[in-house]
């Protein structure tokens, strides 16, 4: 059953320890000045891109970085400027793509992976063992390193927390050129943590600013099938939606709602709520039972780079919203859906961000505490009535956050909209920031490309905890990024 050699956890796994004295001996690695950009495709950066094939390569890149530091980068799914470093070095870590060990027998089972392995690859490798990646973001095309650095969340945040909650240990290449293995500390409070414990939690959600994650041990869940039993409900407006989620979410492991952000009037905020759980073998159709762990992820090709700006306009956005709402049943219980249907409908086509044309788009995701439902609804109304059009809108209830100082999820409501870049968008987003700050909420850094340093400080009150750890491990700020410079981290 165990196809991978069981290896000891930690960093004797193809991860040479390199002392600072040895750094000088590393040969320079190839690099080129290229334009890179986030998934939103707005505000790219010219950066020296280093293809990293080994930890030694990464150390060599650290050595050769002049002045503007280095930024680790995975599959480039951060929407904004988190994984770009204009004028400096950007480390492409996607070639660190080995799955090093799977411990199926342990409880929970674990996998040891290099940081550049994508969730897509990992899911495909683990499913035959009946193992499941516990937290799946909106796309499988993210690396494990990126998932940890952004502390991504999924539809099951209210029951399972964010990705960082499931990391048992990680190997971090720190600015001094050494690789440190950091194990999740047992303690439940920041004050009780030692230096390594704090560095562990600061690296989670740390946006790559404490060093480069090169490997990790992730705890897994077990599944009998690769299917989900899904209940779908249409909700007539936002109050209806929020009420239903508040009442019923705890009965499901996975819950998320799409809502219509275009239609105004009495249908404003109509939504489709989908909630589900992993399907058990006995729940499958006989045909599905023949291959219950089949990874069903069809791809219908790649979106070509031919679309102009304003493809998302009043007409297309209205038509899409109408279609998406109408195609959902009024109320349906127990439908069996595969992975792509349930988690990643957008992954059916590659490079879908090209649909937004050359100007690109931004994704605005914020969270506000549960005791601020009015702010939440006001933000929602501001978006719908702004004239800016968003088709892919997601609403979810978060569960408790974790110890990471810069992790995004907090107990409360979160809402995400995709907005094409157009004149006036900055004013809408700035106005939303103000509401969110006023309610004690925050926006998600992995999606941000426009927040000001001032607002960021107001949204992340534990910034000082972050800075104390980061300044200790990286006093020269060798690890930096355009996001870090913009937010003055």
């Amino acid at each position, binding site marked *: 059953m165990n196809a991978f050699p069981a290896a000891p956890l930690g960093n004797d796994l193809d991860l040479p320890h390199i002392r600072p004295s040895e750094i000088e001996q590393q040969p320079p690695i190839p690099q080129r*000045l*290229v*334009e*890179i*950009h986030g*998934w*939103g*495709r*707005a*505000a*790219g*950066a*010219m*950066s020296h891109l280093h293809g990293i094939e080994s930890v030694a390569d990464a150390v060599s890149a650290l050595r050769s970085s002049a*002045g*503007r530091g280095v930024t680790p*980068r995975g*599959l*480039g799914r951060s929407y*904004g*400027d988190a994984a770009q470093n*204009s*004028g*400096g070095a950007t480390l*492409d870590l*996607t070639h660190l793509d080995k799955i090093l060990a799977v411990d199926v027998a342990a409880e929970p089972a674990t996998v040891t992976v290099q940081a550049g392995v994508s969730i897509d690859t990992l899911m495909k490798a683990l499913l035959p063992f009946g193992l499941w990646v516990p937290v799946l973001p909106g796309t499988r095309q993210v690396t494990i390193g990126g998932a940890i650095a952004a502390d991504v969340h999924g539809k099951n945040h209210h029951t399972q927390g964010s990705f960082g909650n499931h990391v048992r240990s990680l190997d971090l290449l720190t600015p001094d050129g050494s690789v440190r293995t950091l194990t999740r500390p047992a303690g439940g409070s920041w004050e009780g943590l030692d230096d390594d414990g704090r560095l562990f939690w600061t690296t989670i959600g740390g946006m790559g600013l404490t060093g480069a994650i090169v490997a990790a041990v992730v705890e897994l869940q077990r599944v009998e099938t690769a299917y989900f039993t899904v209940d779908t409900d249409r909700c007539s407006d936002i109050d209806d939606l929020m009420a239903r989620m508040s009442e019923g979410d705890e009965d499901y492991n996975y819950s998320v709602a799409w809502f219509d952000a275009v239609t105004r009037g009495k249908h404003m905020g109509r939504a489709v709520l989908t909630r589900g759980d992993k399907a058990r073998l006995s729940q499958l159709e006989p045909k599905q039972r023949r291959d219950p762990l089949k990874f069903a992820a069809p791809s219908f090709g790649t979106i070509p*780079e031919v679309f102009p700006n304003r493809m998302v306009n009043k007409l297309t956005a209205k038509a899409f919203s109408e279609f998406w709402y109408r195609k959902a049943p009024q109320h349906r219980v127990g439908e069996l859906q595969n992975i792509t249907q349930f988690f990643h409908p957008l992954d059916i086509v590659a*490079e879908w*961000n090209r649909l937004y044309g*050359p100007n*690109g788009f*931004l994704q605005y995701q914020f969270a506000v505490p549960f005791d601020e439902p009015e702010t939440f609804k006001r933000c929602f109304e501001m978006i719908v009535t702004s004239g800016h059009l968003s088709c892919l809108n997601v609403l979810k209830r978060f569960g408790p956050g974790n110890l990471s100082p810069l992790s995004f999820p907090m107990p409360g409501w979160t809402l995400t909209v995709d907005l094409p*870049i157009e*004149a006036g*968008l*900055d004013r809408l*987003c*700035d106005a939303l920031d103000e509401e969110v700050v006023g309610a004690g909420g925050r926006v998600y850094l992995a999606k941000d*490309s*426009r927040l*000001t*340093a*001032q*607002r960021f400080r107001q949204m992340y009150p534990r910034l000082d905890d972050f800075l104390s750890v980061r300044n200790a491990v990286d006093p020269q700020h060798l690890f930096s990024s*355009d996001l870090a*410079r*913009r937010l*003055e981290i």
Partner: protein
Amino acid sequence: MAPPRRPSDESSSLINATGNPSSLLLLGGTSDIALAIARKYARRGGLRVVLAARPGERRTAAAAELSGLGCRVAEVDLDARDHASHAATIEAAFAEGDIDVAVVAFGLLGDAEQAWQDAEHALELAEVNYAAPVHLGVLLAERLKAQAHGVIVALSSVAGERVRRSNFVYGSTKAGFDGFYLGLGEALRGTGVRVLVVRPGFVKSKMTDGLDEAPLAATPEEVADATVDAVAARRELIWVPVPMRFVMSGLRHVPRPLFRKLPL
């Protein structure tokens, strides 16, 4: 990794996704147009502004105004005619971090009739309007190239597009200025740094106080509006107001005997 969106010779900037910079350098920090641009960007809050200008009441007042708008303001000394001081000016301008947008706004209109008959005055115009912008432009480009992002906004003038008898010393300096910054924009392609050349017509400002208003006159605010939009739209050359482009395009081709008879 997602493939690059554009060929790599297209440049980028740290200006955020919605077109707003977080830091602004004004070379000529008391210029009406430069301050109008700063006010526009300042609406957002949290803007860092470096005011490079001669020390004095006007700079102090400008700094106070921008601070009042919520900007973090740093004042830096700039003396256009003291070339030896330029390197220190640029160094100081970048002391607190990257510059997203740098506006080259200083200039001198001078007295047109005096300028072509008084060698000292002519030299002053040539130094302030051409030599200094070139010298500072090279130093600025070097810094921006190192950070691999940023936009230089060069406030040119239609006076340089076809130089007229009525103010040809000024016009000739602006012709050189315009050519230098257009060329700099070409040279910087592929580095992440962009140059926007702005050619306003007659602007009602303290520079033109007491002069008769010309047709298609613009206010500093209108120039600022057009500039901010052009930065966001990644433009390389604009005229303010827009019809000025076609007027100048026509004037460029008017034969000399006829041109000298025009009341320009």
